[in-house]
């Protein structure tokens, strides 16, 4: 009973009229466009602020990717200290040098080019931001799915785990854990990048998990889930193929807004001295060290890394807001 173009089909209501009894290409084009992802993307494209923010993010990514190239072009290595006179990275008294044609953003307390270090710092921030967010969302998704779908004792255990996680004072426990690990590594947790990513990723599980769990509880009762069970689908298949796609939009929005939070988290840890270990270039660490210098004339040491951090975070936040509005345009409807 297939239909061909031009068929005259007797229909009893308009509702029943087969959509495809039109020229195939035209219909395909008109109908294909209705996928929710395409719609969201179109809305996003029209949001000018979000697009500008995306451009800024792109620039930062480029800067991170080409950091070695930047260093090479300028002739200033990221760890290179210019204590001599040509070029002079430090004043005769040993203080940092301000922005000039040689050092576009000045130097730090060890005579290193701040601009180059900011470029390298972007690598850390972006890498940790993305990876830790991925860890958070992945872990939260799995836990939330399990808790919501299996219910019973699995749910109770996971819910208690979430309660505990949310009660823990993040910063303090992160600092404690990292300091213990610095003295005596525990398993895969080594000071520096690994422990930072793990800590930042792990602590977000509860927030994501709860949201996912709530959604799963309502989706679980839908008839198409019953249909999947009637077909004999295994629980994990139902969770990932039937339930998870309904969560995808929300997870994307959440991830996009989580990245700047993670970036700030990493910078905070480094600021307190328990994040990325020097001499690796890191914005938080630079700001922290600048505390001894910025009040004595070396304002650039504080300002430029701060601006880098601020602009990055702002760009991600604006873009994230745009993504959220693209998926849920309800906000526009208000008078």
């Amino acid at each position, binding site marked *: 009973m297939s239909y061909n173009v031009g068929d005259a089909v007797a229909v009893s209501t308009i509702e029943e009229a087969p959509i495809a009894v039109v020229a195939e290409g035209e219909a395909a084009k008109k109908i294909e466009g209705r996928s929710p992802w395409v719609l969201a993307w179109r809305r996003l494209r029209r949001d000018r602020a979000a697009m500008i923010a995306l451009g800024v993010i792109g620039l930062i990514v480029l800067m991170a990717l080409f950091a070695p190239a930047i260093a090479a072009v300028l002739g200033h290595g990221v760890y290179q200290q210019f204590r001599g006179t040509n070029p002079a990275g430090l004043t005769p008294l040993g203080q940092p040098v301000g922005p000039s044609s040689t050092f576009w953003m000045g130097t730090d307390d060890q005579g290193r080019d701040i601009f180059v270090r900011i470029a390298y710092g972007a690598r850390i921030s972006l890498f940790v931001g993305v990876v830790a967010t991925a860890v958070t969302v992945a872990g939260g998704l799995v836990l939330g799915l399990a808790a919501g779908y299996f219910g019973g004792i699995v749910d109770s255990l996971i819910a208690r785990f979430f309660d505990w996680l949310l009660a823990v*004072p993040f*910063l303090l426990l992160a*600092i404690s854990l990292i300091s213990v690990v610095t003295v005596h590594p525990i398993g895969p947790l080594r000071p520096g990048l690994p422990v930072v990513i793990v800590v930042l990723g792990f602590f977000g599980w509860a927030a994501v998990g709860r949201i996912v769990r709530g959604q799963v509880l309502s989706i679980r009762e839908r008839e198409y889930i019953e249909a999947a069970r009637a077909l004999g689908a295994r629980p994990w298949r139902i969770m990932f193929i039937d339930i998870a796609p309904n969560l995808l939009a929300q997870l994307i929005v959440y991830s996009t807004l989580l990245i700047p939070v993670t970036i700030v988290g990493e910078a905070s840890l480094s600021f307190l001295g328990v994040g990325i270990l020097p001499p690796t270039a890191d914005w938080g660490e630079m700001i922290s060290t600048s505390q001894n210098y910025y009040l004595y004339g070396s304002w650039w040491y504080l300002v430029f890394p701060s601006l880098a951090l601020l602009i990055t975070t702002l760009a991600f936040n604006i873009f994230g807001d745009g993504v959220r509005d693209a998926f849920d345009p309800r906000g526009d409807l208000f008078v």
Partner: protein
Amino acid sequence: MTRFLIRRALQGLFVMWLMTVTVFLIFFVGPGPSSVARVLAGRNATAIQVAAVSHRLFLDRPVWDQYFHWIGLSHLFGLSPDPGLLQGNLGYDYYHSQSVNTVLKSALPITLSVVLGAAILWLAMGLASGIVSAVKTRSLWDRSFTTLALTFYSMPTFVLGLLLILGLYYEFTIHHIGIFPAPGTWVPFSSNPLKWAQALILPWLTLALVSAATYTRLTRGSMLDVFGEDYIRTARSKGMSERRLILRHNLRSALTPVVTQFGLDVGVLIGGAVITETVFGLPGIGFTAVRAINQQDLPVVIGVVIVASAGVIVANLIVDILYAVLDPRVRLH
């Protein structure tokens, strides 16, 4: 209702217990049996002191024995003369030779001053700007507030703090305008309220501006949500004046998520104002903890973590109860 309260209280106690186990695992078990005493005794401890610590904390005994001792159950059952956690003893600071309770007793008022002062400030700012934004949607007010909120929301606390010090304290001071005392000044409220507040202006501003941003967005969103509800439309069509509408109907329901968020945030900040305290050199419990970590003075860290978690759990409990009082639907679950 009582059933609900009991259940919530039990949950809170359970989580608190989990916290103690976690802390115990990290600090007493994590470093490995041979290092624990050394770690706890502090960096400057001599071998004799380490041995004394080891003996005093029963570190030669099996793990769960140590836990019972530490948490105070042994004392409760008369098995040990030393009071533990349950009796309110947070431990002994070997590094400074004083009890942790003493250390924290002086630090806590500082944290509370910073947090509570900032909290009032940000709640006021957030609510005011949020309400105005919601009422005058898309106006200049709305757009400015929203943009400001976004900017401050994106700013890490330490960045804002340092920039404020640079911009306000530094610039004013080098021009001989002495409004802002040097960062790190602390005057207890009891000795001079005015100077107490003066020293705290910058920390308050820092913490408040960053937090207020969240509240602006939250309030605005919540009020807009309620605006769209049918019962508002009904009241409006009945002829209620707009102002009365906002104040009596809209605000009350819109405020519920804001109030609960507020409770949670204050709870979290008791332990998490670390960054503000560090930037401004205020020796609150967060700063004390960080310094203790750098000095590897772990008993203090343990004490702070316990206190901070307790703060969060209690705040959560209060918020849940408040929510149940405000929204009867929650109780029936």
